[in-house]
């Protein structure tokens, strides 16, 4: 009967025989891979969120009523419904400021809770004649004309198959659903100013207090500004401050820069965590492999005495380390995925930063890279000790354990 043992089979047998030690090594590699994969996906998601945020902002400057800058940022970044108004004449005044190329106004409105399980949504009404911000990215999903009583909804807004949504007891047709952005834009409902007026009037009829004392025709919530070529934002902001009082100016760059700053803080924290986990795991792997290889001197001596070459002995140890590395890598990725993907929404909500998972192929690349690293680190460590042992004389190797 043929009963040959290949080097790979010998490595498997060794792992099975020393199950406790192998389990320890696999656990360390799994921890390393868990942090490596999890940290990378988390950072990539935050980067993608920031990128989508910058793309969607579209305007250089946003002007809101004084004291409402935080509310405006809440609407854009976190989808926190809010409403605030100032006089429509501000838009005309802003259009005359030196350095201003285009202006467009928006009207904010919030819904009540539609039913027991829903949350209030933010309506953003835009003027189709002057808008240069909303319509370009609506066109990515909807090429038709936005008619009266039709709405464009963010990716997180729920609607039923009929394509009709009811707000303040009035029905509106969902014309298109926008792509996911990982920002507050996902919970917004966009409509032209005529439709928003009908929403406003419906809310007024239902007796919603926020419509009191508001003259719809002469009120707006924000003015978005595109600056002229050859001007820098700070100069235009200075010009606005010199000409118009009672407004709060938010620079688009500042908003993304603030997010980028927060993101950098988070990135440093994650990198330090990853570095510490990496160092800890590698130190434990070094110690365990050093002890393991040393205590197996007799085994290696026997292998050498029955004709195995030095290379074969090293190869057995390296194969064991590769098996341990790949197993740990897979376990780490699986555990990390069990947290990252099912709890994706919760993570995004908790970090309070734009958060958007990378595309599947990016995730696949990260998985492959994590697996390669997990499969390479343990063999590199193990081979250092295995080569040292294999260089000793057979007799001495076998005696060392006596």
């Amino acid at each position: 009967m043929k009963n040959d043992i290949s080097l790979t089979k010998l490595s498997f047998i060794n792992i099975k025989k020393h199950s406790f030690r192998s389990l320890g090594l696999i656990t360390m590699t799994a921890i390393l891979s868990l942090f490596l994969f999890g940290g990378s996906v988390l950072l990539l998601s935050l980067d993608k969120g920031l990128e989508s945020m910058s793309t969607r902002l579209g305007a250089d400057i946003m002007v809101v009523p004084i004291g409402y800058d935080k509310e405006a940022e809440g609407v854009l970044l976190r989808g926190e419904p809010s409403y605030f108004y100032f006089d429509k004449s501000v838009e005309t005044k802003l259009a005359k400021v030196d350095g201003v190329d285009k202006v467009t106004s928006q009207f904010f409105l919030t819904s009540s809770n539609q039913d027991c399980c829903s949350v209030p949504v933010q309506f953003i009404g835009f003027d189709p004649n002057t808008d240069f911000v909303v319509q370009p990215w609506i066109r990515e999903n909807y090429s038709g004309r936005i008619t009266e009583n039709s709405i464009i909804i963010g990716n997180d807004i729920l609607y039923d198959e009929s394509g009709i949504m009811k707000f303040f007891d009035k029905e509106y047709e969902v014309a298109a659903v926008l792509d996911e952005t990982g920002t507050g834009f996902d919970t917004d409902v966009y409509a032209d100013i005529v439709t928003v007026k009908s929403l406003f009037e419906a809310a007024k009829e239902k007796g919603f207090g926020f419509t009191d004392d508001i003259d719809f025709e002469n009120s707006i919530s924000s003015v978005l500004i595109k600056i002229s070529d050859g001007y820098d934002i700070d100069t235009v902001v200075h010009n606005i401050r010199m000409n118009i009082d009672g407004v709060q100016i938010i620079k688009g760059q500042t908003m993304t820069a603030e997010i980028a700053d927060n993101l950098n803080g988070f990135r440093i924290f994650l990198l330090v965590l990853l570095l510490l986990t990496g160092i800890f795991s590698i130190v434990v792997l070094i110690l365990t492999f050093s002890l393991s290889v040393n205590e197996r001197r007799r085994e290696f001596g026997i292998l050498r005495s029955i004709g195995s070459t030095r290379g074969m002995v090293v190869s057995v140890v390296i194969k064991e380390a590769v098996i341990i590395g790949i197993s740990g890598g897979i376990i780490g990725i699986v555990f990390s995925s069990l947290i990252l993907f099912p709890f994706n929404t919760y993570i995004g909500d908790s970090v309070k930063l734009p958060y958007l998972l990378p595309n599947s192929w990016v995730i696949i690349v990260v998985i492959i890279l994590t697996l390669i690293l997990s499969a390479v680190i343990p063999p590199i460590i193990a081979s250092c000790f295995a080569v040292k042992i294999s260089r000793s004389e057979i007799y001495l190797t076998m005696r060392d354990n006596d």
Partner: protein
Amino acid sequence: MSSTVIGKNKTKIRKYFLGAAFLLIGLLIAIGPQTIFAVCPKDPDSMAMACYYTARISVGIGTVIAALGLIQLVIRNNGFGSGISTAELLLGILILLVPTILVGVCKGEHMHCHSVTLPALIILGVLLIVLSVTDIVIGFVGRNKRNTHEK
């Protein structure tokens, strides 16, 4: 040590490991939706939401899962093992169906029950199914091996 003794030890370890795992998963399913991965709070003035009932049902299912785990831990007769695993498998399927099809959770993706309780219950359900199926398969293969040896 003979191979029979090693085999018996392995079966014992498996039994205790599974018992402890079932007990832990059961407790998490029973208590989790009220505490660690809580469903949305119930407004006393309005109708209860779907997630509220999912949490209530989870208490019942989780308690049965934990009780079966406890039986697995304390009962000496190994013959109960595969029966308990079969029951846990069915309960695992049930706990998957409760928040997804049978009762559900709130529809809003950002509602706490949707973003936390739902994935947590699904993961626990899948874990329970994987553990029970693995135990049933190992038990089946072991019995087949023993039968072949006896023949």
